[in-house]
């Protein structure tokens, strides 16, 4: 009986090690404890790179954009994250415009871009190459 229990306990320990190693569980738990949801989302989608979730999160909070209509341009043709951020994306020239990962050369600024409609907007927040603009 004792031998049976010992065998079972050894087996459980062995399985636990294998599973934890395969899924990286202790590290995952530690990372979840260390970085909150927002940090992990920013790490996954970038702040002003890749999909730029960090920028979305920042301006939504700062300018209370939740459920507001917004035109979003991602200059690297990456996927946009309105579904994950409770924004209503519009193709019309609505009040707000978000330009993400704007690609520029030399001393070009955003008003030199090929998007003519940008001239109708003024920047209210900028982080690196990400802009939140509002209609003039």
């Amino acid at each position, binding site marked *: 009986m004792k031998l049976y229990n010992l065998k*079972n306990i050894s*087996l*459980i320990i062995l*399985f*636990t090690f*294998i*599973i*934890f190693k*395969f*899924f*990286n*569980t202790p590290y*995952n*738990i530690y*990372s*979840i*404890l260390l970085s*909150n*949801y927002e940090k*992990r*989302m920013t790490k*996954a*989608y970038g702040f002003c790179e890749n999909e730029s979730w960090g920028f979305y999160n920042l301006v939504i909070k700062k300018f209370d954009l939740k459920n507001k209509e917004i035109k979003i341009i991602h200059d690297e043709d990456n*996927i946009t*994250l309105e*579904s*994950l951020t409770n924004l209503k994306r519009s193709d019309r020239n609505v009040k707000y415009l978000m330009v993400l990962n704007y690609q520029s050369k030399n001393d070009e600024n955003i008003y030199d871009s090929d998007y003519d409609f940008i001239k109708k907007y003024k920047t209210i927040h900028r982080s690196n190459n990400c802009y939140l603009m509002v209609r003039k």
Partner: protein
Amino acid sequence: MIELLAIILQLVIFLVVFSFPFQPKSLNRFLNLKNNTLTYLDAHALNIVFFVYLAIIFSFINLDLKVLFKSHIILSIIFFIVNFKELKSNISKPGILNFFIFLLIIISIFFSISLNLKLNWDGHHWIEKALVFFNGLNIQEISNVKTHPHYPHVGSYIWAYFWKNSLLELEYLGRFFQPYFYIISIFLFLNLLKNQSNNFRLLFIFFIILITFEPYLLAGYQEYLIFSSLIVAARFINLINFKDYTNYKIIFLIFLIFYTLCWFKDEGTVYYIIFSSFLIIFLNESIQKKLLFISSIVLLLVLQYLLQKYLIGIYDFPQKITFTEVYNDVVNIKIFITKIYKITLHILISFIKYPLWLLSIFSLIGLMLMKINLNKTSQYYVCCLILNICFIFVIFFTFRSFDFMLKVSLDRLLFQTSGFYAVFLFMFLNKIR
């Protein structure tokens, strides 16, 4: 810390809500099976299928997800308490070990998703539908989503259901349903391995998880729903006696499991037609009865069409195939051979990517080499396999963006059905034992 609690709570919720309504004892009685034929795991898997049907029905009714969940959880808790005695009597030492390993695996996957919470490409499309339900909008709004509005919505509904009813209302918590269903379905394989020690079976289950775990597909894709449903179906096909006696209840149950595929993805409809039709063909029944079965399959398809067309307002398939285009490609021998070669090559690559396919095919070859006359169950699977591969050739042959589709979707299509044919592997292992 609160997020860790939310993750653990999500697991507890799954364990409770999927204990409702079936129990092994009542299920064995209802399906006219011997006692202990179906285990607690089988009942749990069927409860998930039952929940999928609830999701199909309630997605059309537009009931508040929170109200629905409260009713669901209260009913499940009452049911859990009432049946606690039976549950306790089913507990065995190997059972406890299996349950412990199950918990370890599933919670590890949950933590892994929680850390790597990025949605992958298709996930951004499926989430649009999930948001329709999450925001409590009418089901008709599905026809207004930007990407693929015609795709089935039930996977997204389930996502929204658990997302809305999670402790922190975080998107990724809603996605936990898929890995949960996946691990439950893999553990069903325990019931297919006969005459082996529990430790061997556990090791084997872990090995299957090792070769089928694909985090990319758990990031918003729907592939695992089809994969897991097919394994559940395979488990119940294993109970059919094709030679003489037909248990109609089991047959209808399998049809119902297959039918859920139509509500996950478009290709699910094709699997439903292929796998159900062959099931009927292989039954030892009169032509009249077979025709009756065929009619019920068609009826269910018509029902789905009507519901999608008139309640959602959209029913379509991703690509319109023009006969002349396909004809031109077939008669042009150079194009024909190039396309067939490329499809074959990508199928082989996918087999290597998802080695469960290789194991299943080698097991089938092994069974043939052992000069064992394939029984009717094996013949059924072989026919399904042949038609399944033919379907892949035909559908990819007709794709306009042929090379792109080969690269991005053929492997996923093959992954969906890989669990279904894993039955060959178990047949082989049971024979060599």
